[in-house]
């Protein structure tokens, strides 16, 4: 009995100790930082202003190398180069606009930097006014040496005979001709056609086709970069020595000669790579393809060939193969080298 009492007292002491330990305040939880609400940036639809659809024409004296920037929300845009030292802008059935001269030439006083933007109307806020031209059609005449820098929402665009163009259009076809100083064009939805132009070119379309015809580099290092997600690419008579062309699900066709010192890189995921080249060329072709095929209709000399299931690699020479390098890559598409008729 005495030992039981002793043991009970000992148990009670341990119990009191355990209870004191259990009432120790717990570690406070670390406060969770509330997530910063994401800024939703949604482009509003083009505001309509009843009663404002008028024809507006403005002119301003400008240098040959004038730089013109603007934005167009909707309409058909035509830009033409002319010989005058003048910029003329005509908006048919659209919003009124103004021409802001941001910079002038010190000697002549002509504009060297112009911004075309809608004019303020009483009662409108800046957000309502916006920065984009709008109308049924927008026509511009600019000096040949002009540089255009614009972006737009929904516009069918045609630019002819200017020096340099940089544009981004959400929706609408783009046609660029006689651009002498280089192009940077991006069309999210719409075809992109570039003809008879020169300089370094970067052409990008998300869902449209890209057609390029008659390009020449200004310098030998000028790059031609063409990319589309689901459209097709056609390159015809291109004089650039550095070409990167990539279509993810579309086909790609190159027509013309491979130039000495050239580096050509063509890729497609499951489209066809079709090279129409003269058989008297002089280039090394490296073709890598997964589940597709490789077919050469002109005389080529196979240097190495590694054919394994799912991954094939063929290196072949056209002529001596010393002048240039062509890399062709496709996952499940076909690679064809076809003879180009002279």
């Amino acid at each position, binding site marked *: 009995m005495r030992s039981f009492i*002793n043991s009970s007292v000992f148990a009670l002491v341990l119990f009191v100790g355990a209870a004191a330990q259990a009432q120790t305040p717990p570690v406070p939880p670390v406060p969770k930082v509330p997530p910063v609400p994401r800024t939703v940036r949604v482009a509003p639809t083009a505001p309509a202003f009843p009663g404002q659809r008028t024809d507006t024409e403005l002119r301003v004296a400008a240098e040959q190398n004038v730089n013109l920037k603007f934005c167009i929300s909707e309409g058909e845009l035509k830009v033409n180069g002319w010989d005058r030292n003048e910029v003329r802008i005509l908006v048919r059935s659209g919003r009124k606009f103004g021409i802001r001269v941001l910079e002038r030439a010190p000697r002549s006083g002509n504009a060297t930097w112009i911004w075309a933007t809608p004019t303020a109307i009483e009662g409108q806020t800046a957000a309502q006014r916006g920065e984009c031209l709008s109308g049924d059609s927008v026509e511009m005449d600019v000096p040949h040496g002009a540089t255009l820098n614009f972006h737009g929402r929904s516009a069918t665009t045609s630019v002819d005979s200017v020096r340099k163009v940089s544009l*981004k259009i959400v929706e609408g076809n783009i046609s660029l001709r006689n651009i002498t100083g280089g192009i940077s064009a991006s069309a*999210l939805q719409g075809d992109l056609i570039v003809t008879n132009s020169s300089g370094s070119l970067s052409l990008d379309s998300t869902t449209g086709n890209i057609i390029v015809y008659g390009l020449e580099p200004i310098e030998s290092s000028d790059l031609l970069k063409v990319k589309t*997600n689901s459209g097709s690419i056609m390159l015809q008579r291109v004089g650039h020595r550095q070409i990167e062309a990539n279509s*993810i699900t579309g086909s790609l066709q190159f027509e013309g000669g491979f130039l000495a010192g050239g580096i050509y890189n063509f890729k497609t*995921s*499951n489209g066809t790579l079709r090279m129409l080249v003269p058989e008297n060329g002089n280039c090394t072709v490296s073709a890598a393809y997964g589940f597709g095929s490789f077919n050469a209709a002109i005389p080529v000399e196979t240097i190495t060939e590694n054919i394994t299931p799912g991954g094939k690699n063929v290196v072949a020479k056209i002529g001596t193969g010393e002048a240039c390098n062509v890399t062709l890559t496709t996952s499940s598409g076909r690679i064809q080298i076809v003879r180009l008729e002279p």
Partner: protein
Amino acid sequence: MSRNCIDIGTLQAFLDGETKGEETILISNHISDCDTCALMLAEAEEEMSFVMATVESDVNMLVPTQRLWSRINDAIETERAHVPLWHRIYVGFTSMLASPSLATAAAVLVLFGFFAFIFLPGGGLDGTTSDIAAVPQPAATVSAEPMPTVRNAPPVNTEVAAAQPEALPVRTEQPKASPARATHAAYRPDNVARPPAGNFRPVNALYVPGEDSYLNTIETLKASYDSQKDRVLSPSSRVSFERDLAVVENSIKQMREVVRKNPNNQAARQVLYSSYQDKIDLLNSVGQKEELLASLQ
């Protein structure tokens, strides 16, 4: 026979080896000088050998001699010297529990401790679980450094795949019914987007050099795309985009299979990297479109 002849009992003990050291020497010296005792010893040996030949096994097993007892005692002492301390404590504790009163007291103590752990505030299971789950210990991230593509590269390092943190089933909330799992709880910050179901990387997947960097980039862009697609892409654009994405993912899947089977297939690797780049370009185009739309405000 001399007067100092040894009695038969002592001789028998001498034969059995039960005499001590000095006694054994004295007996041996006496037997060497006394023919009578030597004769008695010889007769005793003869009798003993006859008896032992008959009942040898029974005698050896059932009638331990003095020497055997001493050996047993020595062995016991040796064993006691090598018994660990915890074993002695355990033996002592179990012997204490043999007492009914001590056993009852121990049972009461265990019951008190159990109920205190369950019902006292701050000491129960809930508090323990939530505290452990809320401690902001970042989940272990072990990622392989992107390796440059090298021709004739060695076979794929399987340790890279095994170290993918996303492959681990991370749980931030532990069920109350299984508090033991709280020790394995990992913390994932709220601002880290959890990849959707089905996009976890396989645990035993083999990654070719450089593939992991592609996957990380794609994962980031995918999270961005998921948050943008509804407001950036129109229905028709989205259909087209999803179709392109499916084509690219199919290419990646096919080429990964090929590369897994033959890691030295350079062509398959090249196509695989190209497909990954296509997917990155695709996902990136959505972000570019959102930027363009925002600039048109």
